[in-house]
């Protein structure tokens, strides 16, 4: 079971690194927003897997708040891009 959890965390970390690379290379502003959105999903998945591994319930509220704030941030930045233009 420990090996399985290590594998899950390694895969999630690799996915997060790929998101970060896309955020840094960007090319355009919407690219970075898409990558940031996906990075938040990876972080939420990581917290959930850790909660399952250790059996702690303290961080479950963080998941709800993070997914809500992620949507708010994405839609705000989308409005911003629409007015200012993507660069």
């Amino acid at each position, binding site marked *: *079971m420990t090996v*399985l*959890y290590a*594998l*899950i965390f390694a*895969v*999630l970390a*690799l*996915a*997060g*690194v*790929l*998101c970060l*690379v*896309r955020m840094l290379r960007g090319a*355009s*502003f*919407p*690219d970075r*927003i*898409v*990558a940031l*959105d*996906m990075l938040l*999903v*990876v972080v*939420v*998945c990581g917290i*959930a*897997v850790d*909660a*399952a591994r250790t*059996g702690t*319930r303290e961080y*479950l*509220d963080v*998941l*709800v708040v993070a*997914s*809500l704030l*992620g*949507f708010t941030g*994405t*839609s705000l*930045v*989308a*409005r911003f*891009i*629409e007015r*200012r*233009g*993507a660069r």
Partner: protein
Amino acid sequence: MEVVSGILMLLGALLALVAGIGLQRFDDVFARMHAATKPATLGLALVMFGAALQLLPDGGAVIKLLLVVLLQFATAPVGSHLVGRAAYRAGTELSDQTQVDELAGVDPE
């Protein structure tokens, strides 16, 4: 039960990895969005169901995890739609492999 939840979480993590590779290999905001929105719904749901199986006797924890899935299923399409519309209206370059652009020449208002 433990093995089933572990496999569910591993499948969700692998979906996130596939989407990360897609973010690198596609050459267009819209194609990248197509890759990035898969783990936002199915991958997240798989991981949350796996974690919920692990925490099963605790009803409150399971409800919180299912709430995350519900919120994500409600908000992810709306957020993607907003980003896609903003990217197109702001004049983001399309990939040179684009075959059809049905919005070309349409008045934004």
